């Protein structure tokens, strides 16, 4: 039994070691960031919501990283693992749990430690790893129980329904942060419960006694299929194809990210909080959320089902009698639609959340001069968010389609997350830093990209064209990103001028240049 | 109309079709005026190239065994007793050759073979009347 278990663990390790390596690199990056921060920013006012939401953001991305952004890696489909069949179910489930949940916990410890040191918050040490492990356990169990699509649905439903409701009773005197033992016990209980659920579900699935809760729901969709009408044109058909495949992803991700990461602090923490915090949080988060989601969605846009093993485009796509330009246009249009829908979803959720906190709502309705949050600024932020999101979507999409490997993609995500962190902390009045101190920062952000490029070159995944594009686009992306972040505090402070807005807007538009070159890139990809 | 072909026979496929149709004609399973399946249909049925079927039909037409009627399909021609007879004899001759070779192998004398033929013919007679 021992050797079988070790064999299963080894299989897990082989599947995910690349991503654990990525996480290690991120940790190194974080250390580097910490070094650059050390002399720049004085500790901002101690406010739990900001830091916890940042920690949870990290945890979220850690989980994604360890699980390779692919639900199938969280939920192993048993029938395909023929060689595993003689193994008892509990061994299988245990190995997955132990490896993934423990891996997430272990990996998040160094990050928690750094935060702990930086901001002098000892509770973070256990809260972050436990929270990350609990999240991972939740993912595992829902995927085992509901199968892929059902798990996503349950995730959204849980977040949308439960979190705002839980936010209502703001006067919670009992907080988990103040009772570390309770928090730890609660997390352990949660993980054990998730493990038991996974075990039961995996066992049922193995005996084919369980088709997943989603199967029942999707059966209801079947009647729709018979009533579908023919498409008006080839362009319509292609847009439907893109929307159906990945276009809905961005709104869904935006919703999950927003609801999950904005509302969990409210459950765990006491009130009252600093009155300006929610306003800042919402504004910056709404702006960064769309762009962030654009990154992840772009990763999935560039996912395997468009690519052959040789990193070209799938023959199904490319044997459509449609010009390459039109194929690219269809995809871009759907990407734009995604961004619009994602922004709309987040606007709705913002309003929903505002409705649950009376003080916030009154500020909006009364147009208090003190309140930062005016309609005009809201419109401006929304506009910039939209264009930035679209531009970044195009940039990331074109980057990833040029065989720039996932490692670089993750590196880019991390870079953005780290810089958003800086923006949030700097938002409290620290001036942007001068260049010499930021060199370690720049290097720390470029490092994952360089490692990624090197490893893909080794594996023969990168063509010369891809390399050229990556080398050219990566610095542009980074510089734009950095400028975006360093100027952002000015946007939300009192001394914000039209000039600032113009410059920031222009920088957001810079990645939009990628849109113009998309047909050319696609042509390069189509014909090798 | 039951035709079987095997691509690995060594005999070209069109020739197999020609032979089998000739055999069907000779054994009266296809009579004068009967329709043979259109090229397309036979090709699909046998899973072979339509051109092969077309070639077989052409050869049979040249031999006078089939006629094509405009727009109505291909039919067995009404004429041709002498040709059919010659063909019949030739086909039978091949069978006799095979029979004699086998008999030699099994070490059965010619008289025994002839006696066997007569015996079998007598046994078959009542069935033939009902043909």
């Amino acid at each position, binding site marked *: 039994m021992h050797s079988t278990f070790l064999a299963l663990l080894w299989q897990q390790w082989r599947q995910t070691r690349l991503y654990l390596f990525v996480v290690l690199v991120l940790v190194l990056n974080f250390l580097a960031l910490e070094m650059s921060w050390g002399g720049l920013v004085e500790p901002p006012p101690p406010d739990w919501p900001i830091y916890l939401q940042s920690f949870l953001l990290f945890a979220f991305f850690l989980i994604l990283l360890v699980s390779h952004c692919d639900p199938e890696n969280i939920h192993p489909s048993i029938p395909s693992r023929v060689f595993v069949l003689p193994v008892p179910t509990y061994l299988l489930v245990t190995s997955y749990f132990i490896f993934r949940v423990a891996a997430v916990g272990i990996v998040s410890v160094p990050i928690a430690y750094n935060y702990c040191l930086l901001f002098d918050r000892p509770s973070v040490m256990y809260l972050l790893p436990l929270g990350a492990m609990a999240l991972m356990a939740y993912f595992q169990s829902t995927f085992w129980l509901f199968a892929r699509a059902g798990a996503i649905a349950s995730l959204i439903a849980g977040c949308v329904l439960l979190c705002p409701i839980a936010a209502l009773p703001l006067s919670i005197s009992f907080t988990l942060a103040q009772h570390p033992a309770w928090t730890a016990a609660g997390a352990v209980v949660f993980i054990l419960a998730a493990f038991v659920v996974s075990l039961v579900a995996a066992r049922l699935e193995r005996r084919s006694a369980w088709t997943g809760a989603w199967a029942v729901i999707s059966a209801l969709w*079947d009647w729709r*299929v*018979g009533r*579908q*009408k*023919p*498409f*008006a*044109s*080839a362009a*319509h*058909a292609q847009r*439907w*194809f893109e929307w*159906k*495949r990945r276009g809905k992803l961005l709104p869904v991700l935006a919703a999950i990210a927003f609801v999950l990461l904005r509302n969990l602090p409210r459950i765990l923490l006491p009130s009252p909080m600093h009155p300006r915090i929610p306003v800042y949080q919402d504004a910056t988060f709404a702006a960064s959320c769309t762009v962030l989601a654009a990154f992840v969605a772009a990763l999935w846009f560039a996912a395997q*089902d468009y690519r052959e093993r040789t990193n*070209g485009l*799938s*023959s*199904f796509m*490319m*044997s*459509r*009698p*449609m*010009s*390459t330009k039109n194929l690219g246009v269809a995809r871009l249009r759907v990407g734009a639609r995604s961004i619009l829908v994602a922004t709309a979803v987040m606007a709705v959720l913002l309003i929903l959340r505002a409705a649950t906190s009376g003080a916030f709502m009154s500020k909006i309705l009364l147009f208090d001069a003190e309140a930062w949050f005016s309609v005009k600024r809201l419109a401006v932020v929304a506009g910039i968010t939209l264009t930035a999101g679209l531009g970044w979507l195009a940039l990331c999409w074109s980057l990833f389609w040029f065989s720039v490997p996932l490692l670089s993609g993750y590196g880019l995500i991390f870079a953005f997350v780290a810089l958003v962190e800086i923006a949030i902390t700097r938002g409290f009045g620290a001036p942007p830093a001068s260049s010499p101190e930021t060199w370690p920062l720049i290097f720390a952000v470029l490092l994952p990209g360089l490692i990624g490029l090197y490893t893909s070159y080794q594996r023969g995944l990168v063509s010369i064209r891809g390399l050229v594009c990556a080398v050219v686009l990566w610095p542009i992306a980074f510089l734009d990103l950095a400028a975006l972040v360093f100027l952002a505090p000015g946007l939300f402070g009192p001394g914000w001028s039209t000039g600032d807005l113009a410059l920031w807007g222009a920088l957001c538009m810079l990645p939009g240049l990628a849109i113009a070159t998309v047909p050319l890139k696609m042509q390069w990809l*189509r*014909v*090798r | 109309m039951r035709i079987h072909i095997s*691509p*690995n026979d*060594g*005999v*070209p*496929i069109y020739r197999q079709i020609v032979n089998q149709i000739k055999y069907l004609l000779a054994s009266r399973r296809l009579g004068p005026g009967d329709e043979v399946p259109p*090229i*397309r249909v036979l*090709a*699909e049925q046998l*899973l*072979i*190239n*339509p*051109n092969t079927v077309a070639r077989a039909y052409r050869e049979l037409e040249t031999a006078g065994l089939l006629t094509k009627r405009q727009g109505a399909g291909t039919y067995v021609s009404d004429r041709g007793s002498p040709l059919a007879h010659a063909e019949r004899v030739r086909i039978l001759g091949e069978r006799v050759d095979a029979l004699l070779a086998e008999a030699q192998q099994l070490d059965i004398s010619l008289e025994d073979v002839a006696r066997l033929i007569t015996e079998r013919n007598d046994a078959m007679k009542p069935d033939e009347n009902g043909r």
Partner: protein
Amino acid sequence: MSEDSAADSERPVVATALTRRFGRKTVALDNVDLEVPRGGVFGLVGENGAGKTTFIKHLLGLLKPTAGTVRVFGIDPIKEPENVLAHIGYLSEDRDLPRWMRVRELMLYTQAFYPKWDHAYAEQLRETFDLDPRAKLKTLSRGQLAQAGLLAALAHRPDLLLLDEPSSGLDPVVRRDILGAIIRTVADEGRTVLFSSHLLDEVERVADTVAMIHQGRVVLCGTMDNIKGSHYRLTLRFQEALRSAPALLGALSYEGSDREWTAICDGRLDQLKQAAVALGADILEESVPSLEEIFVARVRGARHTKAED
């Protein structure tokens, strides 16, 4: 030149000195000269990795030739992909269909791209193949997936049907469907089928013209009659036992031992007979080899020559 007149007047496929290299070492296609005549079935035969799929990808405009040209209906597939692809129905080797689509969605989606789509015919095909319109492609078996792909390729009555290993891994029932589809396509005037396969008995039944590719080069190309007419299977008996295969001029490969040897030969029968007599052998039997035997003989022969080099 309008699309329709192009399809009417030009030959479906013309490849001239087509060469394709991957990286510096791999030569996938080496100076390939092929012409596919209208209205027939063209069989492309070769080992795994010989270059069949690479060739077909050139026809679709997915690969650019390193040297040489490819023209489909007179048009360069790289310069005008929509024009070319509108006349082609394609079934890829790995049945590369999006697994999340349902059968009916696949039909509607493909219909939008081809103006010549015949809805009644598509429905008839779907019923013949017994495909549930609401079923997702990922729930279909391998054979049904091939049938779905074939449906999408056939229903718009393409002028050129391109099938890349259509029968690989399929049960005999589905294989019959595919062969039937090929025959029906060709029975319609002017439509051409090009299919690659290593199931040579199928190629033998159905192909008019055959091209054999070995390691990127065309080793044999001609009509089925010519090929079968120029190859012979000779059984020779020698006076004395031979330890190794006899060296008969024109023979591609040998089988046998001691005194009796069977050779697959290429050339004129009288010359072969003379050569055999010159070696002191009696010809016991002569017959026409199957396409599979010819193919194996050629490939083995090429391998032996390579080994000797």
